[in-house]
């Protein structure tokens, strides 16, 4: 009798686990295509445009390309890691590859998340999450030489707390926040982490010398700070939620405010001048997994979704407008999006493909 009861309970747990896993894989979802206006592919980055960093007063965007993520084997990585520059004023639909000088190991430079800081002398300093072919991680700091249009290596930071870094936010000339999107280093391990729900990622603050855990045992993908640098937004991508935290830089601590359910896997964030969040999402997980597993196969692609999210004053609720949705044939596996020219244009980045530049002819303030 006792064993029967135990069996029934375990059976029930197994069934609901299976059910939740299938829902997590988005088996009953699909993407219905729509575009906000005419869209064109931006030439240049072919192997990804995973993150952008916009320099508003210069009207330029840096694009990281060629991300390496949970590689099965270094020999699978047949592309180069690159940083591109895109002029937002000219509609050239061509991004320019800019040289990165004095890297310790140029062959092992595979950029992921990007952020920037303006130094006192006006220099643009880029902070880049970098992986190697063997999936070793570091944060690379580069200064942008505007005249020569090149990036000069400043330093490379390695830290045991950069477990599996994904995105980064510069908070000073030498300080930053880094997200770890998980703890395992292999595809199999990641799958276990994903299915079991025991996440080993989080958010780390590096103060220029020492790193501190700010959020632990969590999955954290894209991270972004509000314009006033008081609110931290964290993509809990595997749970399809966005976590909102009050950030106190002096105290190096966060306090959780809310968690917004999106029912889509939102990746990286951009905060616009009106504090809307723009994000590239993966609306159907099951379709994107195959694409991520074999990035170079052009017959595999994943759906894309761009959302503009507007929070209530107390950050307890959010309005979401879907700017673009695509089954992957135009733009595959979107990760980041940002508006420019007062929201009339948008640039969309992807994990492993070219970015997309669209006009926005639709109303965005619906309520």
């Amino acid at each position: 009798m006792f064993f029967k009861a135990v069996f029934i309970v375990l059976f029930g747990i197994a069934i609901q686990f299976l059910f939740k896993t299938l829902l997590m894989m988005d088996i009953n979802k699909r993407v219905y295509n729509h575009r906000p206006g005419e869209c064109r592919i931006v030439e240049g980055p072919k192997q990804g445009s995973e993150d952008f960093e916009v320099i508003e007063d210069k009207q330029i965007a840096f694009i990281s390309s060629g991300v390496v993520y949970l590689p099965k084997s270094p020999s699978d990585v047949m592309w180069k890691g690159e940083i591109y520059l895109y002029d937002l004023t000219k509609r050239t639909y061509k991004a320019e590859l800019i040289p990165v000088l004095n890297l310790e190991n140029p062959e092992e430079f595979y950029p992921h998340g990007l952020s920037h800081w303006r130094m006192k002398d006006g220099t643009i300093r880029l902070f880049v999450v970098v992986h190697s072919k063997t999936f070793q991680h570091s944060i690379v700091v580069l200064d942008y030489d505007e005249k020569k249009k090149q990036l000069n290596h400043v330093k490379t930071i390695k830290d045991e707390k950069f477990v599996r870094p994904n995105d980064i936010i510069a908070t000073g000339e030498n300080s930053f926040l880094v997200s770890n999107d998980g703890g395992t280093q292999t595809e199999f391990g990641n799958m276990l982490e994903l299915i079991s729900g025991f996440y080993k990622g989080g958010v780390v603050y590096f103060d220029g010398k020492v790193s501190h855990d700010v959020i632990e045992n969590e999955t954290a993908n894209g991270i972004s700070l509000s314009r006033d640098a008081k609110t931290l937004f964290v993509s809990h991508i595997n749970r399809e939620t966005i976590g909102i935290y009050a950030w106190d830089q002096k105290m190096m601590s966060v306090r959780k405010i809310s968690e917004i359910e999106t029912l889509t896997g939102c990746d990286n964030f951009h905060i616009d001048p009106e504090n809307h969040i723009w994000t590239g999402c993966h609306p159907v997980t099951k379709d994107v997994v195959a694409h991520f597993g074999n990035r170079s196969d052009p017959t595999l692609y994943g759906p894309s979704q761009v959302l503009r999210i507007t929070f209530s004053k107390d950050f307890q609720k959010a309005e979401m407008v879907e700017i673009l949705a695509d089954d992957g044939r135009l733009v595959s596996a979107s990760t980041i999006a940002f508006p420019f020219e007062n929201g009339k244009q948008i640039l969309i980045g992807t994990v492993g493909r070219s970015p997309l530049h669209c006009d926005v002819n639709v109303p965005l303030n619906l309520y």
Partner: protein
Amino acid sequence: MLKIVLVVLLAFLVQYVFKTLLMFDVHKRIYNHRPGQCRKIEGPVHGSEDITIVDEKNIAFITSGLVYLNDDPSRATWKGQIFLYDLTKRTYKAESIPILNLEDEEGFHPHGISHWIKKDGTIRLFMVVHSKVFKHSIVILDFDETKRQLNHVRTVRDEKFVRPNDVVATGDESFLVSNDGGAQTVLGNAVEMFTGFWKGGLVYYDGKISQYLLENTVANGIILSRDRKTLFVSHINQETIGVFAWDQKKISIKKLSEIETLTGCDNFYIDKQDNLWSGCHPILKDAVGHLGDAGDQSLFAPSQVLRFKFSKDLKSAEMVEVFSDDGRFTSASAIAVGFDDGKQLLIGTVFRDLTHCDIDVPLDF
């Protein structure tokens, strides 16, 4: 042996619960977007469930005041009406036009609508009508353009009009009717839905006699292609669109394909380029709540407008989502009409108002 039977039953029960939850669209949500500026059209407030467009006159007829699975006749406090909307003027006002000589004015609650242009140029409307006690008929009205009124021609009742939803005119006196189920009560409909034993189908009425074309299925919106050779049927509860070759002389259909949409597409409109437009219910669990209590303004359901472009062989379709709303602006869309060469859009709802949008985005890509 008994254990094996129990295990099999348990497995069946588990997969049944799973499929039912998926049918109700758990784990789905709507992300709002509009194709351009949208405005409400004054006039219909208790529904705009179906629209028929008379291209020759650039006008739209809109049915309003639907009664559906009405267990309690006293709850139907609204009137059934037909509205007229001029597609050329952007007045954002639809005009309720009088209907003369109806047999039962109080029992006139129109649902699906279609039109036919007679040889003398008269616009003849065919519509599915329910009474407050959910009796069904097909009402035929002629439009008097000079007096701007509809004159009753005849009312057709038939035992095969089990639970009619939509109608397609095929001649001066003939039409196709869809039955969206067989049950006449909310409870009966729930049983039909949960068991999957559909009792709806498709009926052809030749002016004298009706005959079954499809049986034991669910058929919601129906429409013919511009060349009148292809019939599109909304299998709304299965979230698919059935595509059939239609032969009017032989009064027969042949199934060509079934397009999976993963959303409950309701009524259809075929534009001049033979694109299919539909108003859909993307999240069934929210639609059920709203449609179950039509009078409660605090309940609403998501809306979705899709435009389908079929492949030449009609075996696949490209879908563009033209409009999407969580229900606060447009609740439970049922019909969508793209006009002005795809630059404008009308969205009708089951029990609420009518929306007119500009389309400022590309649809062909």
